[in-house]
C-alpha cells in the first residue's frame, strides 16, 4: 500500500499575523513555521495505515528549502521518504498541479491531506488533486478504515455525517478525530536525518488568481462590561445597541 501525504508549512498557531506596511506581504520574521495541524493528523493516520498494511508513506511539500526542517519532522513522525517540489506555493491550483503531476508519474493508493491549512483555509488543494487525477475526494473525513480494496470514511456534513465507501485510489482530507497525534521519539528523529528527501523542479502552471493585498479585520471597540447583577439586561442591550437580535 503506497500512501502519499501532502503537507504544508504554516505559521505557529499562536503567531500574531502581521503584514508589511503596503499590506502586500506576510511578515515571516520572528514567526515559527510548523507542520499544518490537520496535515499532521493526516500523516499520523498514514503511518498507522502503513504499519497495519505493510505499506509506505511518502510526504510531499511544495515549498522552498526553508521548509526542510518541517519536512524532516514529518519523516521523524514516521514517513518513509519525502519529496519537495522546489517552488513557493503560489496558489491552490499551482500546488495541486505540482502534486498531481508527481502522482501521475508515481502512483499511490491513498492520498491524504489535511482538510484545510490554517493560513489559507481554502480546502481546495485536496479536491483539485482529486479532480486532476479523476478520482474521488472525501474532504472532511473524521475516520478512515480500509478493508481490502475498499475504504470507508465518516465525512462531516452540516449537523451530522455521511458514511462513504470508495475504491482506491482516492484523496481524503483529514479532520479532527481521524488519528491521534504522534510525538516523534528519539529513534524517529535520528532516522529522519538519513531518510530520502528528494527535490523536484516544478512544472509550469497557468496563473488564474493573484494576491493583491491583505487586510486586517476591523478591531472591535473597547469591551462594554455589564455587572453580573445586571446580566438579565444583556439581550435588551444587544438588541438596542447592535440590532442583530
Amino acid at each position: 500500500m503506497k500512501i502519499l501525504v501532502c503537507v504544508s508549512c504554516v505559521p505557529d498557531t499562536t503567531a500574531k499575523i502581521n503584514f508589511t506596511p503596503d499590506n502586500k506581504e506576510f511578515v515571516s520574521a520572528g514567526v515559527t513555521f510548523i507542520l499544518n495541524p490537520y496535515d499532521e493528523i493526516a500523516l499520523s493516520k498514514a503511518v498507522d495505515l502503513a504499519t497495519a498494511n505493510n505499506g509506505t508513506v511518502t510526504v510531499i511539500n511544495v515549498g522552498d528549502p526553508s521548509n526542510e526542517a518541517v519536512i524532516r519532522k514529518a519523516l521523524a513522525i514516521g514517513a518513509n521518504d519525502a519529496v519537495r517540489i522546489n517552488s513557493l506555493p503560489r496558489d491552490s491550483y499551482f500546488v495541486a498541479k505540482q502534486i498531481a503531476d508527481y502522482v501521475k508519474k508515481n502512483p499511490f493508493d491513498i492520498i491524504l491531506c489535511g482538510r484545510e491549512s490554517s493560513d489559507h483555509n481554502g480546502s481546495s488543494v485536496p479536491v483539485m488533486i482529486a479532480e486532476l487525477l479523476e478520482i474521488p475526494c472525501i474532504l472532511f473525513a473524521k475516520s478512515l478504515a480500509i478493508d481490502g480494496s475498499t475504504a470507508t470514511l465518516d465525512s462531516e456534513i452540516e449537523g451530522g455525517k455521511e458514511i462513504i465507501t470508495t475504491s482506491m485510489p482516492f484523496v481524503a482530507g483529514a479532520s479532527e478525530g481521524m488519528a491521534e497525534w504522534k510525538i516523534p521519539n528519539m529513534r524517529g528523529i535520528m532516522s529522519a536525518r538519513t531518510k530520502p528527501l528528494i527535490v523536484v523542479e516544478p512544472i509550469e502552471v497557468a496563473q488564474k488568481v493573484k494576491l493583491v493585498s491583505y487586510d486586517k479585520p476591523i478591531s472591535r471597540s473597547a469591551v462594554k462590561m455589564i455587572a453580573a447583577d445586571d446580566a438579565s439586561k444583556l439581550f435588551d442591550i444587544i438588541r438596542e445597541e447592535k440590532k442583530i437580535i
Partner: protein
Amino acid sequence: MSVLVYIENSEGTFRKSAFETISYASAIAAKLNKPLVAISIGKVSNDELDKAGQYGATKVLNASGEKLSAPNTQAYSSVIAAAAKAENAEVIVLSASFAGKTIAPRIAIKLDAGLAENVVSLPEMDGAFTVKKGSYSGKAYSIIEMLAGTKVISTMPNSYKVVPNAQTAQVVNFDFAPDAKDFAATVKERVKAGNAISLPEAELVVSAGRGMKGPENWGMIEELAKTLGAATACSKPVSDAGWRPHSEHVGQTGIAISPNLYIAVGISGAIQHLAGVSSSKVIVVVNKDPEAPFFKAADYGIVGDAFEVVPKLIEAAKAFKASQN
C-alpha cells in the same frame, strides 16, 4: 453570458445558506447586467424550486435525474460544470458549505476557471475582478484578483444577507448524466445529529469551556442555546477531554464560525480559540476571571460565576423571546 448559482438542498428543502447565496449571486448578476440562473440537483419539489425566483433567479435548472438523487460531490460537480457551459456562465457561485467546498474546486478545474473560497463580500468589478476572502483562520483577509475569464466563488456562510428580489423564475429540466467514474465513491448513509443547528451556518451560538468544570454541568448551556434558538459550541480543551463532541469545537483547528451573536461562557480566550470566532458580529464573554484575555476581544463582558450568570441569562432569554412574539 450569465451568472450561475448552485443552490444546495437537504432532503428536498433548500438550506438558509442557499438563499444567501442566491442573493449574493443576484447582486453580481445585476452589476454585470446578466441573467441569474440557479441550478438545483436532486429531488426537489416545484414549489421549493420556485423559491429561487424570490431572490433573483430568472431560470432554475432542475437536475433531478435518478442517479443524482443521492448526494455525490463528484457527480454534482460534473452537472454544475455542464450547466455553466450550457448557460455560458462567467461567474459561478456556491456556498462554502461542506459540500460546496468539495464541489467548487472541481468546477474550477473543469472550466479552467479561477477559484476564490470563503469570500466575504461582493466582488469589485471596476477594471480588475477582485474578491475579499477570509485568511489566517479568521485573523485576516486577503484580496484576490481573479485573472481567468471564468470565475468560481464560494461564499462564507452567514456573510451575506438574504435579500428578497422577486422574479418570475422558469423551471427547466436539466438532463445531464455524469460519467460512471464520478460514482466511484458513494454515500452509504447520512446520519443527522437530531435537530442540531449546524455551527458553520448558525446565526446564534452559545459556547462554553473549562470554566464549566465538567460535562455534567452543560445542561444550562444547552438550555440557554435552546431558548435562544442557538447552536452549541465548545473550546478545544473541552472537546479533547471528551466532555463535548469534536463537532462542537470552534477554533483554529476546529470549526470557524461567523454568527451574529457568540456567547462564550468559561472560556479564557486563547488565540487559537479567537481565530475560530473572530468573524462573529457580536461577542459576549462570561468569565469569573476579570483578567481573562477574551474580554479584550469581546463586545460585552460579564465578570461572574457562570453558575450564577447563566441562569440569569436563561431567564432573560425567555423574556426576550416572549417579547418578540
